[in-house]
């Protein structure tokens, strides 16, 4: 019963919404999430739940695949570092509010110390610990090796390496040219441009949350919700034919999922106007084109008028519009996900004639 309920809750709609809700709670109340009590309770409950889940043979068979071990380590480190960074930030925010300045800037911490032994020994011990960790890992888990390469027989599911599974998961909602090329390109360029867009001089060289609320929320949303979480979905919840399977659900290759996704053009012309699709491609897709144009261009003045005018004044034109473009690009993914879940939307603009599907 409980397992079926968890399977049900794990479906992308509920789990993604849940992660988003938790993310917004973190951003709204970092003082709660960053407290030691919250950290301890989460740690214990995660360990208990994870330990209980491990007793399930189906879950265990997925989680114990050798190439899935790194993701468990990743999850442990990501969750810990997420909490720890917020914890340190909140502590510093309290100090700053009390007029004491961040912990990293106390006279004692500004004092200069010798690299030998303070830094060199730390590095030595970290290196030794890392070596031991790797050797133990290597002894207990054999590197995976399947049958020899066979170009004529594709395994099902065929998955990319785990660090790209967020991108592969995006393929559910976007075509490869978006999920595999354009969006990763935007992520890359956006990351490189980040220091030039974020002109907030505060929070340079110490943990904080309150002083960089907007930047930290945006980055965390992209990093935790869109990148790390989608890797989890792609790894643990996608089985044969990239169909969704709950954590306790056997990967039955014959599971049938009704897929009746339709394009925006079909919704508009056939369902709404009760006519056939027009022959002219542009006319057929006119609603999608207009909608996309509105999303990328038309919406910008509205955002600017409502929230952005202060940013625009502070940041300057180029920075501001770059920021808006990056936010809209990032937001396009959750928007597309919810459209798929709620109205079975496949493509907003569907031009298979030019391989241009959006």
């Amino acid at each position, binding site marked *: 019963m409980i397992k079926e309920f968890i399977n049900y809750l794990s479906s992308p709609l509920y789990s993604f919404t849940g992660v988003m809700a938790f993310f917004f709670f973190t951003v709204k109340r970092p003082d709660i999430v960053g407290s030691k009590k919250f950290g301890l309770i989460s740690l214990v409950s995660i360990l208990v739940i994870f330990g209980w889940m491990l007793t399930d043979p189906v879950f265990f068979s997925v989680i114990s695949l050798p190439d899935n071990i*790194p993701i468990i*380590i990743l999850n442990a480190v990501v969750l810990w*570092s997420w909490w720890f*960074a917020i914890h*340190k*930030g909140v502590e510093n925010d309290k100090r700053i509010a009390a007029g004491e300045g961040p912990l*990293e*800037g106390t006279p*004692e*911490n*500004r004092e*200069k110390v*010798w*690299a*030998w*032994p303070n*830094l*060199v020994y730390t590095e030595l011990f*970290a*290196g030794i610990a890392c070596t031991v960790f*790797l*050797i133990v890992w*290597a*002894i207990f888990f*054999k590197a*995976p*090796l*399947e*049958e*020899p*390469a066979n170009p004529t*027989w*594709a*395994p099902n599911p*065929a998955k*990319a*390496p785990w*660090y*790209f599974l967020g991108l592969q998961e995006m393929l559910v909602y976007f*075509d*490869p*040219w978006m*999920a*595999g*090329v354009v969006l990763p390109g935007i992520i890359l360029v956006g990351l*490189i441009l980040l*220091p*030039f867009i974020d002109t907030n*001089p*505060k*929070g*340079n*060289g*110490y*943990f904080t949350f309150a002083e*960089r609320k907007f930047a*930290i929320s945006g*980055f965390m949303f992209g990093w935790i919700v869109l990148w790390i979480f989608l890797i989890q979905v792609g790894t643990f919840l996608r089985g044969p034919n990239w169909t969704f399977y709950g954590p306790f659900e056997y990967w039955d290759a014959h599971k049938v999922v009704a897929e009746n996704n339709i394009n925006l053009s079909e919704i508009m012309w056939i369902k709404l106007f009760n006519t056939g699709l027009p022959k002219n491609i542009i006319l057929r897709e006119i609603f999608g084109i207009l909608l996309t144009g509105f999303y990328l261009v038309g919406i910008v003045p509205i955002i600017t008028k409502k929230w952005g005018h202060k940013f625009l004044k502070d940041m300057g034109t180029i920075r501001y519009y770059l920021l808006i473009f990056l936010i809209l690009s990032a937001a396009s993914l959750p928007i597309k996900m919810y459209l798929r879940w709620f109205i079975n939307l496949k493509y907003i603009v569907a031009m298979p004639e*030019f*391989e241009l599907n959006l």
Partner: protein
Amino acid sequence: MSEQSFADKVANTQVWKSIFRHGPPNNARNRAAVVAGNVFLHLHPIKLKKSGVQLGYTWCMGGLTFFVFLALTVTGVLLMFYYRPTAEYAFTDIIGLREHVPLGIMRELHRWGAHLMVITVWIHMFRVFMTGSYKPPREFNWGVGVILLVLTLLLSFTGYLLPWDQLAIWAITVGSNMAKATPFLGHGGPGAALAQIGDFVMVSDKNDVRFQLLGGRFVGEAALLRFYILHCVFIPLVVAVLIAVHFWRVRKDGGISAPL
């Protein structure tokens, strides 16, 4: 002088003095000398702010990434002694590595190390972001770091093909199929159909970006050789150069970040 300990005697030999040109690092002068006089240690400043050596601040993730990179270089070179990048031998050489080579955890160390490096590099980026360390004067070095992050992923990705098993070729097939969809440059991407003059197709599966990446229309022997060279020579060289730039700029931009 008969009270001299063995360690003192060793430290007084001509050989020892020729290697270490200063006394033990227990006073200011020698502590400066040991860092400045050693080609490896001189990456460090001689003195630095206390906040910069605290694990709670740096998480040691950048340093560990570099350490794992070195470990991967060593284990990778050892693996190259046993591995031939051809469709005929690649898989059996991996079997041999597992079954016949003494201390047979080299491939495990290399594979798990590669995964670990991806993790540490991500967490390093997260820490740098959360401490605002990309802010002036470190904007450029953040950009170098982003490129290093991408190269780390590419290193791991190119290495994924080399065992030449089902896991390898199909993961690379899935990954490289994305290149097919590159706008204008891939034959399955938007815009490729426009690059057509009469019957002459300019972007086809015989010349698009995926073809250049794989050296063919599918993941075959040419792709194996390409990925091998990229993995063992080309990307590591680029990474090594960029790491040098990255470390140099850490020092030149004022060391590990701290409140202004």
